[in-house]
């Protein structure tokens, strides 16, 4: 049975991505007790799934490593992975929260030696790589996973393969008898940092995502460019493994669209501009990127990044929302539309199309098991009516990593104030 120490002076942080980690660390470093709950078997959320971030093109390994060091050094944070909040009751200063813990089938003895992986034979979809590849049923979710501990997929539990995996472990770390459990804990304040998910591109029917193999999303393209990704960092298109030298980026795929997401997702313009650099670095003058856009929103101080990309002769910009995509016989996706600068019709073939899909909250405010105010897209709003619940990061708005961290720090401050009042007997 998992034991969690929590009182009404504890801050519960829901979601262990960059925002949740930040909020947990900021609060813990002011001396508060924090419980950090994460649904995945590892921390870092969507940020670790990036190859590099804009504008400095650094690897998430770097920023996250600092946060993980802070986390390991801080005794006030208890981390629960593979955990989901299923119920919240009570009010500001005194919440009771039930958390469902899914079995990992691997305990703290794990040294990440990888022997269980060698013993496993079944392959399952690699969720970390957006199902672009496969992993064995005993796997480390990603190279820098925290906790650095393997996971065993429930599909092999109770099979001979499961027994072989267990036998392969020299540290008695494999425990196939683990069961799902529910723990109840107290909290004075809650930081809701459940982040975002890419908008389901299959809903944008004229773009035929899911039907045409060479139409992928921007998050999938990150995995293609990453040396730890399914192609070892080579930009190869899914249909035939050919190098994708002529890449089209379609902006506002789902965002700023009354039929899909009403809001501007803010990060996608910068993400596509950044991704043209991946193409440039992979193929140089033999690579070609084309960005189809309504207008480029390189928010805030990122205008210079945009200008640098504009100056690259291998990147072109077409001011047009693409009307539809067809597929040529050789697998090339062909983009149809009208360039609104001059009203010129085009029907351009490309090797690969990357849909710059937008952000939607992965847990909409209405899905939170207690009443929390949200906007028309389901993002959590800041409102005194939410009591001791504070939204952080992409649960509150479409944000890039930088802004998510700022938002998380603000949420941590709100939560710290609540539990400080509880400590003084004022709440």
């Amino acid at each position, binding site marked *: 049975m998992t034991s969690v120490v929590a009182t009404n002076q504890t801050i519960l942080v829901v979601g262990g991505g960059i925002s949740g980690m930040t909020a947990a660390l900021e609060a813990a470093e002011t001396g508060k007790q924090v419980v950090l709950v994460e649904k995945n078997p590892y921390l870092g959320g969507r940020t670790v799934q990036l190859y590099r971030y804009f504008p400095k093109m650094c690897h998430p390994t770097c920023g996250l490593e600092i946060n993980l060091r802070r986390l390991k050094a801080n005794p006030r944070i208890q981390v629960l992975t593979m955990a989901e909040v299923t119920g919240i009751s009570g009010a500001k200063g005194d919440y009771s929260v039930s958390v469902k813990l899914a079995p990992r089938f691997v305990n703290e003895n794990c040294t990440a030696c990888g022997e269980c992986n060698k013993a496993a034979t079944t392959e399952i979809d690699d969720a970390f790589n957006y199902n672009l590849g496969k992993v064995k049923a005993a796997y480390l979710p990603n190279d820098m996973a925290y906790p650095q501990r393997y996971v065993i997929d429930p599909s092999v539990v109770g099979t001979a393969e499961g027994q072989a995996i267990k036998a392969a472990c020299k540290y008695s770390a494999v425990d196939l008898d683990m069961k799902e459990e529910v723990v109840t804990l107290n909290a004075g304040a809650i930081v809701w940092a459940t982040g975002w998910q890419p908008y389901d591109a299959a809903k944008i029917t004229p773009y035929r995502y899911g039907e045409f193999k060479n139409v992928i999303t921007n998050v999938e393209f990150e995995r293609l460019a990453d040396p730890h990704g399914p192609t070892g960092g080579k930009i190869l298109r899914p249909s035939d493994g050919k190098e994708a030298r002529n890449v089209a980026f379609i902006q506002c795929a789902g965002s700023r669209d*009354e039929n899909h997401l009403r809001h501007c997702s803010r990060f996608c313009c910068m993400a596509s501009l950044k991704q043209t650099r991946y193409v440039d670095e992979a193929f140089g003058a033999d690579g070609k990127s084309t960005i189809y856009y309504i207008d480029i929103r390189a928010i805030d101080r990122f205008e210079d990044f945009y200008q640098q990309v504009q100056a690259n002769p291998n990147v072109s910009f077409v*001011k047009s929302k693409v009307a539809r995509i067809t597929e040529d016989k050789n697998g090339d996706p062909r983009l149809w539309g009208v360039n609104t600068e001059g009203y010129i019709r085009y029907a351009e073939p490309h090797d690969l199309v990357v849909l710059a899909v937008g952000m939607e909250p992965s847990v909409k405010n209405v899905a939170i098991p207690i009443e929390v105010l949200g906007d028309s897209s389901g993002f959590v709003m800041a409102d005194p009516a939410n009591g001791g619940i504070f939204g952080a990061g992409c649960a509150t708005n479409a944000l890039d990593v930088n802004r998510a961290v700022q938002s998380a720090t603000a949420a941590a401050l709100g939560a710290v104030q609540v539990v400080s009042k509880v400590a003084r007997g004022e709440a």
Partner: protein
Amino acid sequence: MSDMNQQMTARYKNNFLKEIEEQAEMGDWVKMCMQCGVCSGSCPTNFHSAWDHPPQELFMMIRAGKRDEVLESGSMWNCVSCYNCYVRCPRKVPITHIMHGLAEYAYRLGKAPKQQPTQFLSKTFWDNATKTGRVNEVKLTQTLYFKNGLMDGIKQAMAMQSVALGLVKAKRLNPMEAVGGGHKCKDIKGIHAMLAKARELEAQRKGRAA
């Protein structure tokens, strides 16, 4: 210049966007266009040369106050009402309806291009349908075929012969309609009264002289 054109020019002076918003059906949506171009990219007729101004260009021209260019354009008359643009528009602008609204308004002002075939069809259809409350297919096709003279009409009718015979066989076309007034609805007076009332309400709503 027609009376109505004079009246509207005087009322809206140089504010053509406001004129379209108040006078053309669904015109109040024009300002919502964000110039993404998905409408013209989706338009099946856009791949013909007659479409000199695609929808988003027309909307920008309205905002820019290009009154004569917009109203005299043949573009909106080419709309085939496939609704692709309306379905895909990220702002849910009812583009199809605006095209018809613009065409109808240009016609009312007497500024629509004179030899436009869609306009001729629309006018013929309207006159035909409102006369008895029912469309007389024989008379409708006659008027359309013979609009460019007798010889041309015979040529067209001969070309469509097999289609016409098929329609007769399937009882979708009654050749006897050519004689007399054809079939009509029971209460023609009622239909006419309804149309007159609708015209009166429209004039009231749009502040026009009835």
